[in-house]
C-alpha cells in the first residue's frame, strides 16, 4: 500500500505518539495554538449580559495521530487539548467529540471517543478538554478527532497591551489606515525556556496567546501602533514578542525590535490580570558598507 502522508495521518509510517512508557499507556497534550496539534482551532466569546461571565465556544479537529499495532485488545488513552483560555470557574459546560480521521490495515478494529472531561489547569487557569479514546487494530490509526465545547464561565479577562513605535524614516505605510496595518506585525505572548547546551544556546519561545494590532497614529517623528493580547494564561512567566510582518518593508538591512518599557518577563495573576505599557521600538540597522 502506498504510504499515507502526515496530513491525514500515518497508518504505516512514523508513530507520532509513544503510547507505551514502561508498560503504562501515556497520553499527550495537544496545543490548540499549534496547527500541527489542532487543525481549524477557533474560539467564540459571547456576552451573556451577566457580570464577569461569558459564554465561550471552542471548536477544532485535534490531531493525536495515535497508531496501534494490536488487534487483540482495545487500547485506551487520554488526550488533553489545551484550549488556552483562562477562567476562574466553570458554571456550565457541554462537550461534543467525534472521530475525524481513522484508518485500518485489514484487521479487526475499533475506534472510539469514550468520554470527555473539562478541567481548569491549577496553575495557568486555562481550560483543557480531556478525551478518552480507544483504538484497536494491527495497524490501526486514530489520527484525528473533532471537538466542540460550549461553556459559560467566570472570567477574569487577561490583557497585555502596549504600543509599537518606529521612526517615520524607517517605514511609511502607503495608506493612512486599513487592512495593511493588520499585517505589519505579529504580536504574541510566549512562554520561554533555554535548553541546556555546551555552547551557544538559543531561547525557545512557545506562543500561548496571539494579539491584535490597532490603527496606527502619528506621534511627532514616529508612528505608534497600539496592540492588545487577551486570554494569556495566569501564573506563567511570559515574554511579549513582536515580529515585523511582510507588509513592514524597510530598506535593505536588518530590522530590530526592542522592548523599551514594561516588565520582561511578566506574569498575570487573578489579582493582576491586566498589564499595560509593554512598549516596543522598531529600529533599522543598515547593512555594512
Amino acid at each position, binding site marked *: 500500500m*502506498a504510504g499515507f*502522508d502526515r*496530513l491525514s495521518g500515518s497508518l504505516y509510517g512514523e508513530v507520532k505518539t509513544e503510547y507505551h512508557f514502561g508498560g503504562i499507556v501515556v497520553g499527550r497534550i495537544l496545543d490548540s495554538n499549534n496547527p500541527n496539534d489542532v487543525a481549524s482551532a477557533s474560539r467564540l466569546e459571547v456576552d451573556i449580559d451577566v457580570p464577569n461571565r461569558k*459564554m465561550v*465556544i471552542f471548536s477544532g479537529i485535534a490531531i493525536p495521530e495515535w497508531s496501534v499495532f494490536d488487534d487483540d485488545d482495545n487500547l485506551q488513552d487520554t488526550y488533553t487539548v489545551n484550549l488556552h483560555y483562562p477562567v476562574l470557574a466553570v458554571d456550565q459546560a457541554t462537550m461534543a467529540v467525534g472521530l*475525524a*480521521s*481513522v*484508518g485500518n490495515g485489514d484487521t479487526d478494529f475499533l475506534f472510539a471517543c469514550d468520554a470527555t472531561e473539562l478541567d481548569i489547569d491549577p496553575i495557568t487557569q486555562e481550560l483543557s478538554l480531556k478525551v478518552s479514546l480507544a483504538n484497536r487494530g494491527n495497524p490501526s490509526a486514530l489520527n*484525528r478527532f473533532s471537538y466542540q465545547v460550549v461553556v459559560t464561565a467566570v472570567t477574569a479577562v487577561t490583557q497585555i497591551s502596549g504600543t509599537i513605535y518606529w521612526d517615520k524614516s524607517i517605514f511609511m505605510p502607503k495608506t493612512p489606515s486599513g487592512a495593511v496595518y493588520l499585517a505589519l506585525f505579529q504580536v504574541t505572548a510566549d512562554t520561554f525556556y533555554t535548553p541546556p547546551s555546551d555552547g551557544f544556546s538559543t531561547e525557545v519561545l512557545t506562543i500561548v496567546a496571539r494579539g491584535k494590532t490597532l490603527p496606527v497614529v502619528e506621534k511627532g517623528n514616529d508612528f505608534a501602533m497600539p496592540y492588545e493580547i487577551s486570554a494569556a494564561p495566569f501564573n506563567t512567566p511570559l515574554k511579549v514578542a513582536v515580529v515585523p510582518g511582510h507588509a513592514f518593508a524597510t530598506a535593505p538591512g536588518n530590522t530590530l525590535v526592542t522592548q523599551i518599557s514594561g516588565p520582561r518577563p511578566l506574569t498575570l495573576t487573578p489579582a493582576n490580570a491586566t498589564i499595560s505599557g509593554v512598549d516596543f521600538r522598531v529600529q533599522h540597522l543598515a547593512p555594512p558598507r
Partner: protein
Amino acid sequence: MPAIIPYIPNVTRIPVRGPAPFNVLVCVSMTILHPSDPDGVIVPNDGTLIRFGGTVATPFILAGADPRFAPPFQHSTTLSLIQIGPAPDNDFVYAVDSVTDAGFDKITHAWTVSWSAALAATGSLPAELCVEWTTVTDANGNTQQECSAAELPCALQVTSYVLCYEPPLPNPPPPPPDPLTHFGKQRKLLSHQVGPARTRAPHSRSTPGPAGTQIANLTDRKTHRKR
C-alpha cells in the same frame, strides 16, 4: 445509498448582548452524505490517498443581509465522521482533516462551510461500491474481474456556531405558552378523557383490544363487505 435526513433541529438562534455589532448567536448543524454529488469521489482500490474538498450550504440563511456589504461575523466550526463505509476485508482511511473556509454565500446568504477530506482503500470491497472493474489473469490463465476503483460512502456532521447581526423583527412573535399553564390544560384534558374510559364496559367498541386486534377487525370488515 439513501440520503441521510437530519433528525435534529437545524438552526437555533440565540439572542445575545454582544460583542458589538453582533446580536445573535446561531447554532446550525447538518449531516452530509459524502460523496454527495452524482460524480462522487472515485477512490482507486490500490491504497492511494485521494484528497478532495467539499462545500455545503447549510439551512441557516442570514436574515436582513445588505447585499452592498459583506456581513460581519465570527464563527466556530467543526466536522466529524458519523458514518464510514463497509470494510469487510480491506485497508482504509477515512478522514476529514480541516475546515478550510466558512462564510455567507454572496447571493443566497446561506451559511456555507468548506472542508478538506481524504479517502483511501485497498483490498476486497463490496461489489455495490465498485465503479471500475479490471480483468486480471492468474498464472493458470484464468481470468477474473477485480474492483479497481470504488465510491466509498462516508457521512459527515458539520456544526457551526456563528456570531452575526440580524435586524430585529418588526412584529416579534408572541411569547411561547407558559409551560405550567399548558401542562395544567393537558392534565384536565387527560383526566376528562381517561376518567370515563375506565368506567366503560370492557366490551365497548372504543376500548382497544390486545395489540393487533384492530388490524384483524378491519380485515374482517373488508372481507365482510366484499361478500
